[in-house]
C-alpha cells in the first residue's frame, strides 16, 4: 500500500476528512467482573472513540459472562483499532463486528411520555397504534408508550410525537444479535 493511502492515529498530518465515517455494531463477551465496564468505557474515552450506544447485561449467570452491545462510529481504520483494543483486554473473551459480518438484528426499547389533551392526545394514540407501541401507563393528561424496534423506528416515533406533547423519553440502547444459526463464541 502506498504511503499516500495510509495514516491514522499519529500526531502527524492526519487527514480524517478524507475517510468515510462508518457506524458499526459490536458484540463483546467479557467476564462479568467488577471494573470491566469501566475499562471498556475508559478505553473509548481515553482514546477518543465514539460511543453511540452501549448496553450491557449478564447473559449467562453460570458462566459469569456479560454481553456488551456497542454502537460506534469511525473510519474503517478506527473501527479496526477499536476491535483490536477491546479484544486485547484481559477480561474480554471475544469481539464480533456484527456490521461487518452482515446480517443481524438490532432492537431497542423506548418508554415515551406524551402529555396533552383533546386532538393531540387522540392523534398520539393513533400514531402509537400505527407503530405498535403499547400504552403502559395512562392518566387523563398523559400516556406512556412502550415501543420496541430498530433505533431508527424509535427515532421516527419520537420525532412524530414531538409536536403532540412529548415530554420525556427513556431508551435502553441497542441489543443486537446475528441472524441464522451463527453463534458468537465466548
Amino acid at each position, binding site marked *: *500500500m*502506498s*504511503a*499516500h*493511502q*495510509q*495514516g*491514522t*492515529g*499519529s*500526531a*502527524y*498530518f*492526519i487527514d480524517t476528512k478524507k475517510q468515510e465515517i462508518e457506524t458499526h455494531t459490536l458484540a463483546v463477551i*467479557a*467476564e462479568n467482573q*467488577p*471494573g470491566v465496564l*469501566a*475499562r471498556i468505557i*475508559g478505553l473509548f474515552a*481515553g482514546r477518543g472513540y465514539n460511543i453511540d450506544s452501549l448496553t450491557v447485561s449478564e447473559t449467562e449467570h453460570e458462566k459469569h459472562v456479560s454481553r456488551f452491545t456497542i454502537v460506534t462510529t469511525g473510519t474503517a*481504520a478506527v473501527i*479496526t*483499532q477499536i476491535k*483490536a*483494543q477491546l*479484544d*486485547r*483486554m*484481559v*477480561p*474480554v*473473551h471475544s469481539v464480533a463486528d456484527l456490521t461487518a459480518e452482515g446480517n443481524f438484528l438490532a432492537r431497542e426499547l423506548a418508554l415515551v411520555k406524551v402529555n396533552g389533551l383533546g386532538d393531540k392526545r387522540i392523534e398520539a394514540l393513533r400514531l402509537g397504534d400505527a407503530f405498535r407501541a403499547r400504552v403502559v401507563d395512562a392518566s387523563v393528561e398523559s400516556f406512556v408508550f412502550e415501543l420496541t424496534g430498530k433505533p431508527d423506528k424509535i427515532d421516527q416515533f419520537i420525532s412524530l410525537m414531538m409536536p403532540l406533547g412529548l415530554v420525556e423519553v427513556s431508551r435502553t440502547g441497542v441489543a443486537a444479535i446475528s441472524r441464522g444459526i451463527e453463534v458468537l463464541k465466548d
Partner: protein
Amino acid sequence: MADEELMTGAEIVLRALADQGVAHVFGYPGGAVLPIYDEFFQQEKVKHILVRHEQGATHMAEGYARSTGKCGVALATSGPGATNCVTGLTDAMLDSIPMVLITGQVPTHLIGMDAFQECDTVGITRPCTKQNWLVKNVNDLARIIHEAFYVAMTGRPGPVVVDIPKDVQFAKGKYTGPEGVIVKSYQPKTAPNVTAIEAAIDLISKAKRPLLYTGGGVINSGLEASKLLREFVALSGIPITSTLMGLGAYPASGKEWLGMLGMHGTYEANMAMHDCDVMINVGARFDDRITGRLDAFAPNSKKIHIDIDPSSINKTVKVDIPIVADVKQALAALLAEWKKRGVKLDAVSLDSWKRKIDQWKSVDCLKYKPNRDVIMPQYAIQRLYELTKTRDTYITTEVGQHQMWAAQFYRFEEPNRWMTSGGLGTMGYGLPAAVGVQAAHPKSLVIDIAGDASVQMTMQEFSTAIQYRLPVKIFIVNNHYMGMVRQWQQLLHGNRLSESYSDALPDFVKLAEAYGGTGLRCSKPAELDAAIMQMINTPGPVLFDCEVANLANCFPMIPSGKAHNEMLLGADVSDEDVGSAIDARGKQLV
C-alpha cells in the same frame, strides 16, 4: 497437602511471591500494608528493598525487569503510596515492561467512606495497567496474585496492580499454588500464521532494498529472539536498524548495523528507511518518533510487521503482511522457511543498496566539533563507552539530550543492557532504574547516564543505593540546562529560553557526600579518562558531576513534521538553520 492449610492474606502474599520465584520487592510501608510488612520480617526468601519514594520503587522494578527478563515487583501502601506509583505504572505500560504492583487498601467495610488514606486505586490505575484487581475475598487472593504474574509476563508484557484491603490481609484463607493458572478470557497468540510467513518470504526474496526495523519487542521476546535475529541477518545480509527500545538486540559492532533510527537516529538509518523497498518490522510499533511525517514515511516500501499485539498492527501505518506472533517464534519460522527454500537475495541489487548505504554512512552524521577546553557531551559518552565496554556493564538513562547522546554514542552488544524510558519519557527514571538493575546484578557495573535536571526528580533513591550497598554510578552530563527543552526553544521559540536554565543546582559532590556516597567532578577533557576510571574503581555508589558544554545541541534531528530525508545534521548546522527548521505546522507537534 500444604496447599490446604489456612493462612492469613499477608502470609499468602509472601508465599505467592516466593512461589513465583521473586527475589526482590521494592517497597515502602504504611498503615494499609503493615500486615504484609510483618510477614516480610518473619521470612528470608524474598528480600525487601526500602525505597525513598514509591515512584522510585516502580522504576526499580522496571530496571530489574528489563535487565533480567523477569517480572519486577513493587509494594506500596494505600492512598498516597498508590498514587505515587502512577508514573511508574504508566511508564511500564508504554514501554511494555512486566511489573506487579501490590498496594494496600483500607478495610473493605470502609471502602467508599472517604476513609483515611483511601483512594480508588483500581480506578486511578485502570488506564495505566494491563489489568488490575481489588481483592475482596481472601480465598481469591492467591489465584489473583498468580494470575497477575501470568498476565504481566505473557503476551505483550505490562504492569498490573493487585489492591488488597487490610482486612483481607488479616483474614485466613486457602492458598493455591501457581500451577495451572489460566485466564480463560486471555490467550495471547504467539505462533505465526504459516501463510503469512510464506508471503513474507515471497516478498523478502524479491527485495532489492530490504531493511530490518527492529524494536523493543525483540528484547521482550527474550535472549533467544536476539539470537535468531542475528542469525537471520547473517544469513540474509539484510541491513538492520533499531528503535531506542531495541538497542542491543543486534550488536552495534555487527556488519549490517546502521545505528538507531528516528528523530535522533542516524542519517544512514533514516535514509535507508525512506528508500527501502521491503521493510521488515520486528517488534516495533511505528511510533511517531520513528515515522515523522506519515505521508512521506518509506513511501515506496512494502511492509511486513511482526507484533504480538494485534492492536499494534495498522495502528498508525498500514502494513502489507501482518504477522501476529511472538518475535522468536516468528523469526524461527522465517528462518526455517528461508532455509527450506534456499533463498538468496539478488546479489547485484543488494550490493548496490549497500553501496548507497555506505555513501550515507560517509556523511558521518554523529560528527561534532571537538573541543580541547570543555568536555563535549558526546565526548563524555564516547569516553564512558570506551572505558566500560569490556566490562560487564548495564546502562540506564534519564530523559533529555544526554539520553539521546547515550543512544547514539554508547554501543550495545547485547540485549537487556540498556534501560531507558522511551514511551513516556520519564525524567527521574534512570537513577532508581539503576538501583533496580544493580539489585539484580550486584557484581556488575551499573551506570545511570543522567541529566542535571532529571536526576533531581528521584535523587533521594541515592540513599536507597547507599543503604543496600548497591554501587550504582550516576554519571551526570551536566549542561546546566534542561538541554532538550532549551534545544526545542531554540528551534521553535526564537531561542527564548523560558524556564529551562537549571538555576541553583546543588553541589553534586557535596550532595553525594551528604548521602554517605562518593562525589566526583570533572570539567576538563584531559582529565576525563582518569576521573571515569576513578568512578569505576570506587566500590560504592558515586555521583559524577561531568561538567559539559552548556549549549550543545543533539543532532542529527528530524524536525517535527518533516520527512526522513529532511534531517538536520550536526556539525554544520548554523543557528539560522536551527531557528527556521520547523514550520508553523510542525510547531504544533510534540
